């Protein structure tokens, strides 16, 4: 593992922020990463239980709480186990070492003589009468965390590597479990009237008509173009908000056309242009190229966003399904003009989160209203059409691959050229909340940005191929403006880039008259990647792949997420007639040490289905003053009858560092589908989603 301390520890040196032994013989574990459906809490609990030798059932985890838990930034980018997991391991090992060292002095023995059985200390296999709960004291917590204690050897793991079930699922199959279900004293329900885009001004609001439709009491909180309907009866404020859409008159709203929704729109837009990688060369061999594209896509969480806030005695307390309680706390304090120590943000579970969705916006909505109505808990629930219409979406993304080939048809010089909007506009990176733009005196428009390459890049993510090519580069055109607000969604540019690159590898193989798997292996020296490709090719019976153009297709693709996290290879078998029907999917992933193999498999399967849904079906539609795909009929996702059989394998590599795996199947799945469709049809579709209309279009062109 790396010698440098993880950022989570650098920023949180006090042990008691992480670990405390409680009077009820439980272990309190505080973490900054939060549960967003990925099962991270049980994995982190397993790591602490392992290092301290405490039964995992004793671990009570507090995740995402600015009043108590450590600040670990945002839960994103498959970093939770890599960073937080490593931190929990080091912190737990250090506490164990401090306690055992002190106990050994007391017992006049060596720390290594002491064994720990579910938190009780034994010497020479005899109970000492001491355990964590009666022995640990303030002395063990005095010093800052050094990170110097040596964690256990993976070969001795008893809890890590086991499929321990999640605790949080019990409530989720029984009843109330989510932020949406919270009930607080003096709670009022709120619904928003949303400004149709930055700069739109509310010039008329027929409150009488809204009150007639609402059939009940509510109050209107209005600050500039920020409008909320607040009352004790949720049904009434919901009716008010629905009616308000037709009884509000706005001026100065943006005007969009369907063309704004296509990736090609970005080609003519002003952009920040950059070169990443090798300097351009003058080609001497044959150059081939192709353009691939993905439209704007939505997070489309099952639950519209929700936020709760209460303002009492000058203190603001907020509950949110945000990915980062500390960044949100800082933003809310700043926007509302409150000192940071007077704002607490606590994480509460929401629906599956795949990036920067409406969670933070809903929390600020609630806090703005709460500041106007002190003494109440304000519960803001977004409506479905509000979620689809106003959550940040993932930018449309166009990727052009241009490759110089040698005489044998192998790439010697590879260029990935990307046109896209920003892939990350979280408020901590300068992005704006919806409410900020609606409140009086909105800040200037956000400057577009993307994560640096050291963090995996945004539009450039996975844009550098990991094949043995002599020269590789990315040309990135980061658009200075996007037609609608864009931000992070599972994998950022990885999915569209891997789709383009791994599809183009198949096109190059075909051109060279080579089998696509053999063509890849001839230019791939990374042994971990080779193993995956060979494993999946064997399991899907690649060598007996049928001829091209029969309607049945088999395609394969691989990637290493961010070129530094987990590896995944995916093969897809499908049938194409009018529609595409996925039949079977095979996947093999290498994520180094896997903390919870069942949770990891769940992530692989979920990533495959999510990516398949995006590849086959999803497109945010733009027109008029914004997004027009506002329900599940106009933004369809994969259903039970469309989901294929999925077979996953995870490489057993407990001695290698853990690699984040929540996003590793995303790009390979999209590209494997693209390649399988090309195999089935004999013609290639380079634009997502691969819909019935696109299939008919390419078949008509022949």
């Amino acid at each position, binding site marked *: 593992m790396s010698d440098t301390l993880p950022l989570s520890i650098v920023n949180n040196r006090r042990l008691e922020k992480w670990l405390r032994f409680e009077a009820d013989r439980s272990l309190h574990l505080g973490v900054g990463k939060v549960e967003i459906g990925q099962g991270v809490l049980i994995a982190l609990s397993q790591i602490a239980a392992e290092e301290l030798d405490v039964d995992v059932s004793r671990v009570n985890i507090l995740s995402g709480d600015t009043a108590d838990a450590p600040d670990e930034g945002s839960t994103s980018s498959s970093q939770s186990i890599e960073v937080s997991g490593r931190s929990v391991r080091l912190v737990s090992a250090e506490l164990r070492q401090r306690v055992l060292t002190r106990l050994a002095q007391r017992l006049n023995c060596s720390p290594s003589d002491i064994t720990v059985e579910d938190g009780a200390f034994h010497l020479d296999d005899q109970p000492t009468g001491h355990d964590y709960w009666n022995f640990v004291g303030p002395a063990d917590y005095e010093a800052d965390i050094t990170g110097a204690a040596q964690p256990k050897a993976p070969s001795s793991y008893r809890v890590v590597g086991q499929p321990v079930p999640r605790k949080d699922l019990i409530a989720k*199959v029984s009843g*109330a479990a989510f932020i949406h279900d919270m009930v607080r004293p003096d709670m009022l329900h709120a619904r928003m009237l949303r400004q149709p885009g930055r700069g739109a001004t509310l010039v008329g609001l027929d409150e009488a008509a809204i009150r007639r439709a609402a059939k009940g009491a509510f109050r209107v909180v209005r600050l500039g173009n920020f409008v909320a309907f607040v009352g004790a009866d949720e049904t009434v404020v919901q009716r008010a908000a629905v009616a308000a859409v037709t009884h509000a008159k706005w001026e100065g709203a943006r005007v969009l056309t369907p063309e704004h929704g296509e990736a090609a729109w970005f080609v003519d837009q002003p952009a920040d242009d950059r070169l990443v990688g090798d300097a351009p060369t003058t080609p001497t061999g044959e150059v081939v190229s192709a353009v691939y594209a993905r439209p704007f896509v939505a997070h489309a969480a*099952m639950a519209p966003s929700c936020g709760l806030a209460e303002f009492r005695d000058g203190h603001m307390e907020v509950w949110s399904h945000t990915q980062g309680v500390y960044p949100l706390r800082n933003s809310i304090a700043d926007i509302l003009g409150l000192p940071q120590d007077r704002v607490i943000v606590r994480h509460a579970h929401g629906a599956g989160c795949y990036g920067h969705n409406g969670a933070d916006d809903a929390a600020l909505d609630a806090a703005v209203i709460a500041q106007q109505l002190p003494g109440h808990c304000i519960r803001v629930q977004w*409506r479905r059409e509000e979620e689809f219409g106003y959550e940040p979406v993932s930018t449309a993304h166009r990727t052009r691959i241009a490759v110089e080939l040698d005489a044998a048809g192998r790439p010697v010089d590879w260029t990935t050229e990307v046109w896209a909007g920003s892939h990350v506009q979280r408020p901590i990176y300068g992005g704006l909340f919806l409410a900020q733009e609606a409140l009086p005196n909105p800040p200037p428009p956000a400057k577009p940005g993307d994560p640096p390459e050291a963090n995996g890049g945004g539009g450039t993510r996975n844009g550098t191929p990991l094949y043995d090519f002599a020269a590789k580069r990315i040309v990135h055109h980061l658009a200075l403006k996007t037609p609608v607000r864009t931000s992070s969604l599972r994998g950022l540019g990885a999915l569209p880039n891997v789709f383009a690159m791994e599809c183009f590898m198949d096109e190059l193989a075909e051109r060279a008259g080579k089998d696509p798997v053999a063509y890849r292996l001839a230019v791939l020296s990374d042994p971990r990647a080779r193993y995956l490709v060979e494993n999946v090719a064997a399991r899907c019976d690649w060598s007996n792949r049928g001829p091209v153009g029969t309607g049945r297709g088999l395609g394969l693709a691989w990637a290493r997420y961010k070129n530094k996290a987990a590896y995944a290879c995916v093969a897809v078998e499908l049938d194409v007639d009018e529609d595409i029907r996925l039949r079977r999917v095979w996947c093999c992933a290498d994520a180094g040490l896997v903390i919870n193999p069942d949770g990891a498999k769940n992530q692989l399967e979920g990533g495959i*289905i999510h990516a398949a849904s995006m590849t086959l079906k999803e497109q945010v539609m733009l027109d008029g003053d914004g997004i027009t795909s506002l329900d*599940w009929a106009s933004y369809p*996702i994969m259903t039970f009858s469309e989901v294929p059989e999925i077979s996953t394998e995870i490489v057993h590599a407990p001695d290698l560092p853990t690699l984040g795996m929540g996003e590793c199947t995303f790009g390979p799945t999209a590209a494997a589908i693209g390649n399988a469709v090309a195999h089935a049809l004999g013609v290639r579709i380079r634009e997502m989603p691969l819909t019935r209309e696109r299939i008919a279009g390419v078949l008509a062109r022949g």
Partner: protein
Amino acid sequence: MTIALSVNGRSVSTSADPATPLIDVLRNHLDLRGTRYGCGLEQCGSCMVVIDGKADYACSREVGSVAGRSVTTVEGLTVDGKMHPLQTAFLEEQAGQCGYCLSGILMSAKALLDRNPSPTRADIVTALDGNLCRCGAHPRILRAVEKAAAMIREGAGQ
């Protein structure tokens, strides 16, 4: 005017306006918050409950329309502290990621198993096709329903 109905085997009455959506009555008047709002459009299935043995949407159905009828919610699956085989099977299979879709899916599955204790995979897929799951837990959910059906059959044979 009050509306009387049976919820999870219990007689309840509500003074809510008959046009109030059933989901609001369940969540806000009866404090049964396991029935989840997803779209309000009968498109996602998050709000699914069982009404007189049939899985149905609670989001846009008016409470007046269920007067005198029997409604079962996810809270009704646990009886006297004992989980329904569906809940047990979902936990054993870890059939969920975020879990927001699960109460609706459990109710669709319950209606299926109550009328057909030996469903095929295709029967289950058909019964759940009105329920969306965004996290991609579908393969596990299908396995869990099959497992629950087997548990129920074995229990009935004892």
